[in-house]
């Protein structure tokens, strides 16, 4: 460091900018490596033979041994479970946005008695351990016939996703000046029209983002899925039921099976994640 001891002279503007740029690029690369390297290591383990997985030291390079992967794919019912997962996740997404967004709008635009209580209750749902709630819910579902249906499970996942939907839409709506809406009213729009024509386009990307949350929450949820579905098992529940007690190499293969669909899904909606940024360019 001593060789680079800074002088008190102010640096030239170009210098600072270049240095800033360098810091910026380094930070970006490091943050990307921070996210990607652990996932890469998981893939390495998945594509290694069982003896390499328990061996030491590891090379950090895959040997492209597909035994564990093949074993997983040969497990009967994977395709069906995948489909069930998608169905449940889409239902969760639709339900949580459909129910959550109006609530988020109400919280951001109105002051009314009970507002804080409502917010607290919504947040509380996240603060309660689901494994305990699963039992009363399962009993209720068996009694009313929702047991082992995608819809029933989606209801439970919606409880988990709803706070996100409500609070995220709340902060999104709060970020849109009410004057915009008021301007539309003065131009002869009624409340609904103003909402659809003015607020919706602004909010849509953020809405997609919170829908993505809902999707991934449902996608990754294990406990309720394991208790509430039997024939219509979701992929996570299907894989996870045996992962904890399986040998290491299968654990890693299972981990990959959990990760890859999520990667693909986020990749598929990246345009919308990107579109959120687009609002700032308006």
């Amino acid at each position, binding site marked *: 460091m001593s060789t680079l001891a800074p002088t008190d002279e102010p640096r030239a503007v170009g210098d600072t900018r270049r240095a800033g740029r360098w810091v910026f690029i380094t930070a970006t690369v490091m943050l990307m490596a921070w996210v990607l390297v*652990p996932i890469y290591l998981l893939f390495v383990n998945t594509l290694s033979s069982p003896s390499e997985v*328990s061996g030491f030291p590891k090379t950090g390079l895959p040997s492209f041994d597909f035994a564990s992967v093949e074993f997983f794919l040969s497990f009967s019912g994977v395709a069906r479970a995948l489909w069930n997962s998608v169905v449940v996740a889409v239902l969760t997404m639709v339900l949580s946005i459909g*129910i959550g967004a109006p609530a988020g*709008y109400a919280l951001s635009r109105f002051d009314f008695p009970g507002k804080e209580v409502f917010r607290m209750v919504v947040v509380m749902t*996240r603060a309660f*351990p689901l494994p305990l709630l699963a039992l009363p819910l399962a009993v209720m579902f068996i009694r009313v016939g929702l047991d082992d249906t995608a819809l029933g499970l989606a209801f439970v996942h919606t409880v988990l996703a709803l706070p996100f939907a409500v609070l995220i839409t709340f902060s999104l709506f709060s970020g849109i000046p009410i004057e915009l809406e008021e301007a539309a009213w003065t131009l002869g729009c009624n409340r609904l029209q103003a909402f659809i024509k003015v607020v919706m386009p602004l909010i849509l990307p953020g809405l997609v983002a919170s829908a993505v949350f809902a999707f*991934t929450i449902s*996608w990754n949820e294990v406990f309720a899925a394991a208790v509430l579905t039997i024939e219509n098992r979701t992929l996570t529940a299907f894989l996870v039921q045996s992962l904890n007690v399986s040998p290491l190499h299968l654990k*890693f293969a299972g981990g990959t099976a959990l990760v890859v669909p999520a990667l693909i899904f986020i990749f598929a909606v990246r345009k919308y994640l990107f579109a959120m940024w687009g609002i700032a360019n308006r």
Partner: protein
Amino acid sequence: MQSRFLPYMLLAPATLFLAVFFVYPFVQIGILAFSSGDGFTMGHIQTMASHWKFGTALWNTVLLTAIIVPIQLALALSMASIVTKLKTGRSTILFVFAIPLGLSDLAAGIIWLAIFEQSGFLNSMLAGLGVIEQPILFLGYQNMWVIFAAVVLAEIWRATAIMMVILVSGMGLIPKEYYEAAEVFGASPWKRFTKVTLPLLRPSLQTALILRTIAAFEVFAVVVALGGTTLPVLMGETYQWQFTMRDRNVAAAYAMVILGISIAATLVFLRLLRVPKEARL
């Protein structure tokens, strides 16, 4: 007047839904925590509090949260700033940053186990660099702080993305004109960040902090993957009482504790980051 009822109408679907699928089962659990065969009792709370692991579990949970959440906030803010500033490769980088969003805590636990276990990648790397000859046992019960650090790393890795995406959407809503104005007045990037971005980001910050803190109180799968029962946390004890010891009452009592500290934290954030209606954009 229509608009007096409008907010309630907008809230009705969510309220109904929560009443059926959350409040109803929740009340049943609440009753479990405070009742025995013959009425009200504090016995389950006492059983819980007098168990030798309770204090440690509570302390570990709170400490983990107190360490993880601030680091995540800083990291998420940097990531969000990077994403909003980028000119090229924006969507790729946002995608990469957002990847952990789609990962379950179970998968994250498995991934970090591959790194920290005795024949794992960290030891392999250290051996490759010649730093060590024998693999070190990182996750042993004697090295509680290593397990603790590993959990912190894994949690930061896994759950920062969610804060980032909330903050990115929030930053997207800040009108560009504010920055332009600030630039005209010669504000440095850091000044622009602290004087424009942060204050205007308040609603999103509040949301991100509340959701993340509550989730941090429920840390479980990652802890089990990395430290087994060596590092007791509240959620792990709940699970233990519910399924291993099969005492649903004490498990319910633990749930009440988690709920209690979550409410406390939420109230703190609501107050600290209050979003006054007049002060909005």
